[in-house]
């Protein structure tokens, strides 16, 4: 499988009144064709900013991609002009967001919003675009498509709106779909529907999905490959089964252990102590060291690099550096 998205040493910074936040700090990973890659992380881990950097939608002037490469289908996105990037956005790379309720324009009809990318990228005329829009509404499993096309977003439920968002996203047949917490705002029963649908579209069109989530359950259900982020850095990545069965990084281990699982009750949950470090006060170190049970002296002073530890699994942790050095 060839890679469709190749991110190398991506760095995205935000300037605030109190200093610069390195929201995405030297992040590299790949998304291969037809694959679902999940980025997992807590709030502030930089997972959404990574996605926005790919889309070229980092909010300036405070935020800016300051370095690295983003290659999409062989093309370097960071070198494209704004207009060239725009023709890729919504066309070859599409995106859906966390809050379906606020992600659609409240004063435009559903149909109009669905037609826009078709007119913009597929150069359809209004009539053809509307016809296609109605087909798309049907494809995402909503009946009464004609009627829905003429309604406004507030008249639909969150689950329906997320389906519409998916319809907009797949309308131009993208090679890559970025889904940023697409089910976080939805109920579990609706979440199951949406995840099923994403999987279905992926199978049908062989597109790749970059799924961003904090929910390990969703990761286990969807992902082929997992990237774990913490404080702007990738701390671990690997094939989903390997990573869940044999997590290497203490953070990944803690995350997996601290999640209560249905029908697997424990007396006390494992919990990672402390909290995410203040992004303005990061010094060269493993950013997890304050919360880590295996913290060593080197962790407090030097940043570990992401290294392969076999079976396509990579981890950024001094524990394994030493292990490999000793072998």
């Amino acid at each position, binding site marked *: 499988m060839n890679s469709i998205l190749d991110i190398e040493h991506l760095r995205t910074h935000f300037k605030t009144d109190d200093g610069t936040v390195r929201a995405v700090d030297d992040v590299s990973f790949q998304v291969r064709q037809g694959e679902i890659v999940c980025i997992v992380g*807590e*709030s502030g881990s930089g997972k959404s900013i990574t996605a926005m950097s790919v889309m070229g939608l980092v909010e300036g002037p405070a935020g800016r991609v300051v370095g690295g490469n983003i290659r999409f289908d062989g093309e370097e996105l960071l070198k494209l002009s704004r207009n060239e990037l725009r023709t890729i956005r919504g066309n070859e790379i599409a995106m859906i967001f966390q809050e379906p309720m606020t992600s659609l324009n409240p004063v435009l009809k559903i149909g109009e919003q669905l037609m826009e990318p078709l007119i913009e990228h597929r150069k359809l005329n209004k009539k053809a675009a509307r016809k296609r829009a109605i087909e798309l509404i049907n494809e995402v499993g909503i009946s009464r498509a004609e009627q829905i096309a003429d309604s406004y977003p507030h008249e639909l*439920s969150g*689950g*329906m709106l997320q389906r519409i968002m998916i319809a907009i996203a797949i309308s131009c047949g993208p090679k890559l779909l970025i889904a940023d917490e697409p089910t976080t705002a939805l*109920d*579990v*029963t*609706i*979440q*199951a*529907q949406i*995840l*099923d649908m994403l999987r279905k579209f992926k199978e049908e069109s062989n597109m790749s999905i970059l799924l961003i989530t*904090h*929910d*390990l*359950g*969703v*990761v*286990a*259900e969807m*992902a082929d490959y997992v990237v774990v982020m913490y404080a702007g850095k990738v701390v671990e990545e690997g094939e*989903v*089964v390997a990573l*869940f069965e044999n997590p290497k990084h203490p953070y990944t281990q*803690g*995350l*997996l252990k*601290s*999640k*209560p*699982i*249905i*029908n697997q*009750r*424990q007396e*006390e*949950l*494992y*919990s*990672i*102590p402390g*909290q*995410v470090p203040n992004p303005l006060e990061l010094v060269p170190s493993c950013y997890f060291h304050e919360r880590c049970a295996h913290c060593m002296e080197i962790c407090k002073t030097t940043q570990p690099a992401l290294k392969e530890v076999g079976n396509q699994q990579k981890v950024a942790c001094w524990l394994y550096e030493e292990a490999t050095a000793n072998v």
Partner: protein
Amino acid sequence: MSEILQPLLEVNHLKKYFPIKSGLLSRTVGNVKAVDDISFSIKPGETFGLVGESGSGKSTVGRTILRLTDKTDGEVKFKGIDLYDLSPQELRRLRPKMQLIFQDPYSSLNPRVRIGDAIGEALLDHGLVPQAEVRDRVLEVLAACGLSSYHIDRFPHEFSGGQRQRVGIARALVLNPDLIIADEPVSALDVSIQAQIINLFRKMQETRGLTYLFISHDLSVVEHLCSQIGVMYLGSMMERASRDELFRDPLHPYTKALLSAVPVPIPKLKRERIVLSGELPNPADPPSGCKFHTRCPYAVARCREEVPLFRNVGSDRSVACHLV
């Protein structure tokens, strides 16, 4: 012994309708039945979990119990006292015994009040401890909730989400309540922080013998904490059972679907999944008969016409389904 069996909280046929008003004289033309005839009781030391999706009315149940909104009908008994019979003054005096923990740790703390004052002010207002001792009591409860003594003079915006939730818990605990209603207390928190707070809830129950009404949409959290569980859908209770029974053998189709829809962090685990079709019906215009019939994979004609009774099945479990 008989005292132990006496429930701490009894909710009988509780109803809360939000009127839909219209017309020149604001006549009520319909109702959103947010809570529609709910009954359950909680024994001292027990944790009762109320589960449901958005719009199920679970939060309204909590608020109606605490008289944060008025009930439409039914009764709420706390230690045998009907809360709706109390005068505002009597209710105020009883309040320290029933506390609420909010979902959003950001908006439930006044941004202009120091943490120490936020925790201690109710002690003062109820005259629970002499003024001189308030600070000591606050320090004590801060320590118990995993916060430090120097936090006492800080303002809420100086804390992270998890810490604020600890403050919210400390604010409730300092009053030595008997009952704590926790309304989605961990859903706004990150996974690694969630576990910390869940453990704190557990620890507090063990050391202080608290009784919880734990409202949540997250079945895995509820399973972890609660001994009794009620499942709500569109304002009605669909099933109530002990934790072990409910998770081992869910009876109501909705409970089954809910359980099977929760993603489990074990990749390639093949489970039998019931994916519900359709959306939540409009609560202002709920389906006839069984409210769940529009999405139920097993629905029969009878479900459309007849409202199923919430009836006992087995020793201590009830379910509202014609097919059980």
